[in-house]
């Protein structure tokens, strides 16, 4: 019981949950566990089922594509305090890229199937999560558009 309590506290303290009600924190806690990835370990790979998503507590994760013949390309990164992964929230729930720990990384891992079920039956929870994920997607899209401009590339 104390572990559940600790987990709820960890979720409450993560920046991504700021402003969430206790009720929603409890619902999230029911689908969450603590997890750890060593330097170089993959959190997920492109094409895999997006059955887990992460809130990073410590460390750093690279988002990558394997693009022969150029090899592996890092296109973004996530750090402590940030959420990692949107594919769990959009059908067909498959990861679009690889995610690899660049250093020892601690994260909260959420069971996406469990949480999608709770969001179906609790629209307020769904709203609370979408309100957090939509700005994340918006900022991600802005970053991508700026990267596409290749502003430093010269003439």
């Amino acid at each position, binding site marked *: 019981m104390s572990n559940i309590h600790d987990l709820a506290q960890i979720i409450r303290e993560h920046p991504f949950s700021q402003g969430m009600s206790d009720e929603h924190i409890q619902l999230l806690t029911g689908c969450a566990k603590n997890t750890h990835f060593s330097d170089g370990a993959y959190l997920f790979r492109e094409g895999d089922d997006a059955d887990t998503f992460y809130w990073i507590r410590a460390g750093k994760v*690279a988002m990558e594509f394997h693009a022969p013949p150029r090899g592996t*390309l*890092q296109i973004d990164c996530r750090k402590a305090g940030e959420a990692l992964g949107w594919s769990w929230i959009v059908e067909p729930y498959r990861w679009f890229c690889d995610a690899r720990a660049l250093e020892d990384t601690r994260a909260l891992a959420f069971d996406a199937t469990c949480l999608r079920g709770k969001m179906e039956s609790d629209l307020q929870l769904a709203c609370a999560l979408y309100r957090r994920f939509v700005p994340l997607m918006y900022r991600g899209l802005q*970053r991508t558009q*700026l990267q596409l401009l290749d*502003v*430093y*590339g010269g003439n």
Partner: protein
Amino acid sequence: MAQLPGAALPAKGPMVPHPVAVRHLQRETHDTYTLTLDPPDPDQGLPFTPGQFTMLYLFGIGEVPISISGDPASPMQLVHTIRAVGNVTRPMQDMQRGSVLGVRGPFGTGWPVREARGKDVVLVAGGIGLAPLRPLICHLLKRREDYGHISIFYGARSPADILYRKELESWGGRFDIDVSVIVDHAASDWYGDVGVVTTLLCKLRCDAGNTIVMTCGPEIMMRFVTRELNHLNIADEQIYVSMERNMQCAVGMCGHCQYGPGFVCKDGPVYRLDRIKPFLGIREI
């Protein structure tokens, strides 16, 4: 220091290039190099203010405005970091030690080093935009006690495109300055940040009301940087930008670099943001 033909002649005004010899050429990245030149005046050197530029003349080919990127405390060597992108800057990268270039200047306004005294200082650079900020960084570090918290945010296209890599590592190793570098994309052996430079600003530690920001890079980058800074409660009056336009005469005569009612070569290139913001949104200029 080699005495060049014509070097001893008196100056004939700001439009006359002084012949100077190339002392050293160092390749920085695949398309960028640093030229170290003898100064036009072997006694005085070429004193300049961080942020100013000179006109470099490759005889028989053309003249280009290039920001000075050396240490202002070392006026006896004239340093420019140049990207090889045009008809002048491409052949310029093949110059050998002892080759002769024409130099005019220095011209333009500098970074607000006096206004920044006693304040937190934030520098945001993108790509080759780090070069015009390098003299400022040298100045700030030499007078470290005159300034509050110093942060440098630098964005580059890829790890191979990072300018002044060793110096960035050295500055980042100091305890009295924060240095953050981010690249647009990288291979898997890169352990730094990936993304756009605006992303780094969430790391900013400063007293927003007592901060001066100086930014140099592609105009679109500076537009998004200034927007992000405004969100962090840093006002336009606290932000200085270095503008780039088609500067040719460098003395406000030819009109090629007209920007609103002024000229970038004379009234810039460094501007306080609130003084030019009305013109930033006008696409025709």
